[in-house]
């Protein structure tokens, strides 16, 4: 059993402080996933923070049945939160002076932010579900079965979303 599953066990047995380990082990992946779907880091952090609170609530209420791995379960909460937020929320202004963790390479981070902006412009016209499916497949490296598990839909529905997303991107390219 890996560290993440052990931390989940500890939270389930009443050790709330173990949730910090879950956050430390997953926040980088989840914020990156959220940013790729939302198109900016500030909104992604809001979504991921809400996702952690939901996950904590579910864990302490005994609602996590462990039918999927903890990572898949957290991916699902973040993807659902990001899709809902994308549908309802207006884009939050990106804070230009946002502090980068001192341990990270500032230049690489700045380049990543530029690339994120390019990604957002490119995928902006896609419906949130199609964008999420495309990000999960082409950027997070999940296969269709895994995407179906994360998004809570059939593999056929995933395939349809991916085909439509690529068709929309092709059409956009032809128009420009």
């Amino acid at each position: 059993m890996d560290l993440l599953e052990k931390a989940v066990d500890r939270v389930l047995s009443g050790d709330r402080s173990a949730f910090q380990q879950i956050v430390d082990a997953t926040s980088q992946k989840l914020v990156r996933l959220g940013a790729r779907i939302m198109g900016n880091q500030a909104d992604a952090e809001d979504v991921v923070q809400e996702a952690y609170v939901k996950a904590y609530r579910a864990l302490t209420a005994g609602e996590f049945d462990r039918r999927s791995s903890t990572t898949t379960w957290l991916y699902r909460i973040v993807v659902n939160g990001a899709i809902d937020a994308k549908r309802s929320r207006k884009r939050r202004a990106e804070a230009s002076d946002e502090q980068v963790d001192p341990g990270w390479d500032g230049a690489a981070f700045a380049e990543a932010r530029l690339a994120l902006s390019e990604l957002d412009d490119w995928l902006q016209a896609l419906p949130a579900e199609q964008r999420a499916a495309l990000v999960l497949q082409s950027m997070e490296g999940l296969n269709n079965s895994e995407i179906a598990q994360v998004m809570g839909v059939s593999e056929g529905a995933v395939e349809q979303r991916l085909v439509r997303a690529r068709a929309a991107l092709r059409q956009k390219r032809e128009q420009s």
Partner: protein
Amino acid sequence: MIEQDDIEQRLARLSGATDALRPSAGFSARVMLAIEREAAPSFLESTWFSARRLLPVAAIAAAMAVVWAVQVDSSVDDELAASYVSAELE
């Protein structure tokens, strides 16, 4: 096909370029603060839980008060009855 490759190449490039994204400084602390707020019971909840713990003690105290009141009442009645009897005898 070329267009499709173009889409895949661009996705791959942007995937690599966004790999360096990280949570901003203090993100983990903000999350744990939100969790602590979630875990801490509200004033009403904590008052209710404290009061609930005292409920059995309060119930026993109330029962003892009723027993004591009945006993006092009956001893007063006995004393009054005794005083009427002695008054009549006089």
